[in-house]
């Protein structure tokens, strides 16, 4: 059992879902406005390396995930090695290391939410998105559902994150309405 992969996205062969990985050349993010944004960030820290997490966030915002090419670009602009950048990327759960559904749905199931029925919320999302399994993307590429560890909104069980949107007090009954709003 790999402790880092417990409960989260396993690292299956996602090649079939890799919509951007079919030989299209990588387009750099840190040019023009992207470069300006990075320069602003660099001004906040005494080292270039400290801008690594924010730079990776920019890559993910622009490209939807953090590919090896993305890591190489970040390594280049921050004067790090790609291997070092990958080491950091793999430590954190929020950087997608492969493409995910258009709507990335994270349901908190840690104990406080677990005792308030979070597992039923997970089941409802899996059923209504037709993803079937945690961590896999629906056939239409729209949804990926995962269980996430404590989202820090335990009094609003069950909290759910859909991309950058943070939803509170989700129940199995409200899942269809939430999904209808997305599409």
């Amino acid at each position: 059992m790999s402790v880092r992969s417990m409960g989260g996205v396993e690292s299956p062969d996602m090649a079939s879902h890799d919509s951007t990985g079919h030989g299209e050349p990588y387009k750099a993010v840190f040019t023009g406005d992207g470069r300006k944004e990075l320069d602003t960030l660099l001004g906040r820290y005494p080292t270039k390396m400290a801008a690594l997490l924010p730079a990776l966030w920019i890559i993910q915002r622009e490209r939807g995930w953090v590919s090896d090419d993305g890591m190489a670009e970040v390594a280049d602009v921050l004067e790090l090695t790609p291997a070092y950048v990958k080491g950091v990327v793999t430590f954190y759960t929020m950087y997608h290391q492969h493409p995910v559904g258009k709507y990335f749905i994270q349901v908190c199931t840690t104990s406080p939410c677990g005792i308030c029925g979070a597992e039923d919320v997970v089941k409802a999302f899996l059923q209504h998105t037709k993803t079937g399994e945690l961590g896999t993307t629906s056939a239409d590429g729209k949804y990926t559902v995962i269980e996430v560890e404590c989202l820090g909104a335990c009094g609003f069980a069950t909290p759910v994150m859909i991309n950058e949107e943070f939803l509170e007090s989700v129940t199995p009954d409200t899942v269809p309405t939430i999904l209808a709003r997305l599409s």
Partner: protein
Amino acid sequence: MGYPHTSHQRETAVLSQYFGDEEARTLDGWKKRGGYQALEKALGMTPADIVTVVKDSGLRGRGGAGFPTGMKWSFMKPGDGKPHYLCCNADESEPGTFKDREIMRWTPHALVEGCAIGAYAIGAETAYIYIRGEFTEPLIWMERAVQEAYGAGILGANAMGTGKRIDVHVHKGAGAYICGEETAMMNSLEGRRGNPRIKPPFPAVAGVFGQPTTINNVETLAAVCPILMKGAEWYKSMCLSNPKSTGTKLFSVCGNLRKPGTYEVVMGFPFKDFLFDLCGGPLQGRKFKAVIPGGASVPIQTMEEAESTLMDYEGFVAQGSMLGSGGVIVIDDAQSMVRVIARLARFFAHESCAQCTQCREGTAWTTKILERIRDGQGTMEDLDTLLSIADNMTGTTICVLSDSCATPVISGIKKFRPEFEALIHGKRVHSVLAAVA
């Protein structure tokens, strides 16, 4: 006001008085409510005087450890010629804890102000607010507040026109509970994997970027503003039990109860009244069974212990637990303690940074064994094995994540052993019947 419920009459709303108040989120609204007067006052004082006021107030760290804030600040040597840093720990990830989230999304300027005062007091020109990546809403409000404060000249090279430089930056985490541990947070801020560091050196000597650093929790820094405005004596007078625990404390309450949410009470408030009066007691037809009062890392309390507790640092210890972060998880009689504890263990296994063997292996095996007991496949020997692993996981690692996983296991088996045994024997009875059939 209070959020999501209006403040109960027995609450003492100092930090939470503007929770739910949309206007308090903006710079204008915050100023109308007396905002930035504390910073103005602070910038007219010497850093040493501010540290003295905070020391005298008795304020202790609200993130979990309860270390006296003024004393922590006094470890930062003035005039050492090195850049100093303040890090605000807003990586609130301890299961059951969501109080800092309310501060950041309702009164973001309270935190900007607290950070600016803290930075000035420890001789730092730069403060970083490290917010967990999942807190998208607090991130928006905090970034907006920081921008507004720069725009109004409150922050920057000439903070409030005093000629002093105070920068505050929001830094977004990327999903790692361990980054709430202060040395892991510093590594993460530097652009590294969030592995905790061995102490010493302590952060005040060599912290982020190798420079003297102080790390304070969101609630701690927010509390500094009212302390400076109303004085140390006022703060110290808010105490219902042990004089070592002063002021008000935010408690975020969740689990199986009528009114989950964030409440603010004076230190030493009776926990029984808190649970049954303020929080509305158990759900219809249910009874409270257990409480984890300070986030998932602290020992589980029986209801007997919880009902005898006075809510302060010493009060929780006297009743077999700890105040911790103030994240109260209430568990009722409809829940299986084994299931609750197994899920907590899975949380810790997922969040272990895996650099120490005891933690990497211990959290994973603890989870496996607890889940097999949960699924009716356990043996009595498993309980001994769990306690033995927990013993090896306590006090043997770089940080306390390992201890945090062991704590609910040890207290759970000690206080709720019949539930574990019932599941184990249930399996035996079942298999005997199966053999006969």
